[in-house]
């Protein structure tokens, strides 16, 4: 058996995890198709049958599901390529990668270079591709923090503040875009890695309490402080938080009736996405309405702009019901737990920390995204890894999975 492993290194890859990833990608294509093909009731085959091959190809290139397939292929290739090099070799370049992504995060903030969409500057327009640096910054952060923390545990106390600084830099830059959700997922990933690296407990407890108090103060400030005392947050973020906590938009004292009316309407509009996502998920029931039979998306109640990316889970839950939700969560569970197993079997501290960072990053994104569909988390623009449409997100996620496989391939024993 030992010799067999040596002779066939491909057998050392984590097949269970690969199968789960494959399942997620199949679901991704199927439901991006469902979410975006509502205006073409004839579907794929009619399109193939009725037009010439060139026209068909042109049509296909414009369609989200096909692009998603392309991104999966590119991502899988990138992930496989990463497996060719030992992760320990890769880690030596981590600070180069980290620096590059920080630079890109700065570049995206420059008007003219970064593209503005929905009031946020998160993308760099490359023509064929809207490049979203924050997706890669997360990964770069995990890689460099793992590298940084992989030194002997005795030194951790000394470098505690430095490692925090490693986290705060991308956090602030992403927050500036603004993209609160993407910034926030860095926190659990960083905390998880610090904890697993063996940072002394009281440091961690202090850190968590300080973060908790700061968060609470922030919320109190946003909700209750008089206007000129409030920290400047984006108005839409404040409103999202108000929606999440079920607070009504307080009209300024002495507001006219029209103003009150406007605020009430705005609140209704702002909570629209959450409300519609909940209706989608809830009306799916046990077994769902069937693939491409969901009405929330087809009728446009679930906004078209977000159905195939941030709210893809609503589409799945509506069309496949609770059964579909359980399947999705099971697939993620398989990926997460095989990832943790990889961490447990890693050859060295670097591999262990890297695996933990990737798993916590993935987990927090899944939790935030699905949680926002059922209103246990506020709405933030966090995509559902591997299922949501989006080149940067898919590429980043698959590269991360490639890293996990890399650690698994070079595991102990």
């Amino acid at each position: 058996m030992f010799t067999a492993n040596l002779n066939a290194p491909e057998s050392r890859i984590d097949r269970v995890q690969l199968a789960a990833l494959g399942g997620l990608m199949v679901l991704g294509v199927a439901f991006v198709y469902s979410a975006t093909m509502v205006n073409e009731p004839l579907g794929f085959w009619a399109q193939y049958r009725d037009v010439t091959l060139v026209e068909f190809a042109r049509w296909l290139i414009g369609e989200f599901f096909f692009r998603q397939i392309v991104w999966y292929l590119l991502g899988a290739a990138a992930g496989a390529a990463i497996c060719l090099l030992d992760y320990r070799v890769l880690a030596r370049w981590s600070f180069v990668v980290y620096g590059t992504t920080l630079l890109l995060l700065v570049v995206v903030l420059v008007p003219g270079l970064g593209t503005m969409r929905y009031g946020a500057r998160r993308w760099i327009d490359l023509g064929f591709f809207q490049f979203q640096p924050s997706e890669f910054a997360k990964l770069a952060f995990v890689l460099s923090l793992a590298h940084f923390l992989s030194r002997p545990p005795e030194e951790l106390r000394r470098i505690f503040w430095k490692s925090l600084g490693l986290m705060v830099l991308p956090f602030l830059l992403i927050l500036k875009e603004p993209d609160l959700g993407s910034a926030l997922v860095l926190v659990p990933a960083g905390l998880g890695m610090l904890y697993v690296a063996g940072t002394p407990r009281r440091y961690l407890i202090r850190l968590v309490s300080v973060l908790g108090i700061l968060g609470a103060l922030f919320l109190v400030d946003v909700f209750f402080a008089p206007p000129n005392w409030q920290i400047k947050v984006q108005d839409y973020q404040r409103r999202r938080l108000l929606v999440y906590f079920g607070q009504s938009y307080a009209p300024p004292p002495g507001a006219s009736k029209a103003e009150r009316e406007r605020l009430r309407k705005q609140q209704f509009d702002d909570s629209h996405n959450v409300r519609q996502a909940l209706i989608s998920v809830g009306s799916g029931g046990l077994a769902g309405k069937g693939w491409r039979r969901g009405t929330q998306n087809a009728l446009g109640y679930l906004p078209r702009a977000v159905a195939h990316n941030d709210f893809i889970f609503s589409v799945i839950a509506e069309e496949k019901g609770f059964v579909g939700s359980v399947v999705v969560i099971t697939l993620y569970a398989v990926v997460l737990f095989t990832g943790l197993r990889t961490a447990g079997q890693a050859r060295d501290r670097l591999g262990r920390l890297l695996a933990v960072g990737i798993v916590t990053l993935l987990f927090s994104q899944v939790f935030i995204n699905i949680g926002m569909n059922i209103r246990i988390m506020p709405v933030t623009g966090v995509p559902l890894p591997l299922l949501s449409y989006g080149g940067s997100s898919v590429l980043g996620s698959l590269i991360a999975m490639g890293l996990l496989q890399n650690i698994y391939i070079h595991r102990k024993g």
Partner: protein
Amino acid sequence: MLFFDQLKKNDPQLRLLTMVVLGGLGVLLAGLWWVQIVSARDYQARLETQSFRTVRLPAVRGKILDRTGVALADSRPSFNASLYFEELRKPFDAAYTADLAALRRQLHAQMTEQEHALKHPLTRKERARFALSADQKNALRQRARYQVASNLVAYLSARLQQPAALDEQKFQRHYAAALVLPYPVLLNLDPTNLARFEEQSVTLEGLDLEMQPVRVYPYQTTAAHLLGQLRRDISSAEGEDSFLNYPLPVFRGTVGLEAAFDAQLRGRSGSKSVLVNNLGYRQSESVWSAALPGENVVLTLDLRLQQAAERALAQAMTEVRGAVVVLDPRNGDILALASAPSYDPNMFVRGLTPAEGRYLSDARLRPQINRAVQENYSPGSIFKIIVGLAALESGLDPRATYHVQPDPASPGHGCIFVGRQKIRDLAAPGDYDFHRALLRSSNAYFITNGLRAGIENILRLTRRLHLGELCGLPTRQEVRGNMPTLPEVRARWTAGETANVCIGQGEVDVTPLQVAVVTAAIANGGKVLYPRLVAAVAPQDPFSGGDRESFPGGQVRDELGVRPRNLQLVREAMLAETEDLEGTGYAAFHRGKPGAPVLPTFRVCGKTGTAQVKDASGRTVDHTTWFTSFAPYEDPRYVVVVMVESGGSGGGTAAPVARDIYLKIEELERAGAFRLPVVAQKN
């Protein structure tokens, strides 16, 4: 198992992390279970309320048919050319985009101009003045929509050569409130325009025909009072879906047969649900419950007789106000029931014009009153039939003569004194027996013999004739008439009042239909019948399997209970009224005096009457003229009662109307028109 491996190993950090991940996924699963399993019903209901609109489907209203199956009230499809908004979304958007771009260019030009004027680039604050607010964009969108629709309507109008305009306010209101319903542009297209539309419609996206059943009365004013009126109504009847988002109006009867048989005529409205998208545009629709058409109501009326009666009545005088009843004395079937002036019930369907509204509320004409059943009239001399019969029953010798004394004021006429009151008599002074007294309509004779018989005997007879009571028409638009009751008479009564009753004045009032029932009883040998107006209620589709409900004719309400010999005496005297040279009705039925009879075969028994209409102070202000009759004498099949307000005299004004009706009846009988079953079996 995957994660148990982690939990077993001695690796506390990873174990904790595993538990956190496990817990997190557990929370998600629990949340999903709560939303998708426990509260699923709730969310499904919310989905329905936000994406379904229910619309009523009006049922086709049943017809009202005459006895031969001709529709007096019908439903016809009305075609509207309507805008379908869901097909106009793209043009709306395109127009808006174009308008927005134009406006932006304009604003930009203004901005550059300002920059030139100020000689420096505008600051952010100054620029903001040129930005478009959401309200402005909304207004722009509204205007773009209206322009697209209005262009389409103008194009249609040109193609159909039919003026059409789009009222902007109405259009915007409809868009805001009833987006899923088509917006009617041209109502009620006639066949030519329909054909033109069909030719063009291929090129007109967003325009299509919409069909609605509309009530129509093909014979306009004919039998209008009986048929009644409708109004548009949006409430739901019992057994229909209520809580509709768009309860399209249906017709509800408010007056006449339309009201009395509304439950049967209106059928049952169905409903459909329209799936709408987030902007409220119609996506698809499905019928929940189909509309059930209403049932037909079959009348005893004969359209030809009804028309003949109305025509004859209209010729009686100018601006005639009167009524005609044609009844079959054998079974009480109402063959015609006319009231003048009439109105066209179609105008209630399409809405009244101010002139029509004024006409309907004219205080003198009162066109909405059915004068055959809805108004009290003094019977005048026709009441002498009843008084005479009562006198004969109480022992009057028909051959005994009574001498009428001349009126001191006008020696050519008779008169009688009751107490100190003088009652004039149009008949000449001289000797009168029963026969001559009835055909000359001698007041003095009937007052004397009426007083002799006594008011109570007269009233016993009127009670068996059910005067002072409703005839029981289903239209329920009836008055009772007036007839003193026995207790009233016993409590307070004077001979003068009895004398007035004997000549059909004073305390007695009747309706023409009541007079027809009385005359039918004389004609048929003493059977007091319920008049019948509705023969049956039958399903519109004879093969639908629905039940036909028939109302039998010839329902006897009472027996007159008088000796046949006395009835015969009355009949003979009534015959003489139109055949004896002295008879008040002779002139109407003969060419010249003496002359040949106008009617080829019928011998008509009749009685004229001219009742005085008095005002509050007792002065005579007007006359009600009557002619009640039946024919043929040998085998009475028709009772014709004519009443004309403000006529000259019974013989001069009312009798010719009856004669014209009999002429028509004879013509129809000769043509074999009545050789149909009594009540038409086909629909």
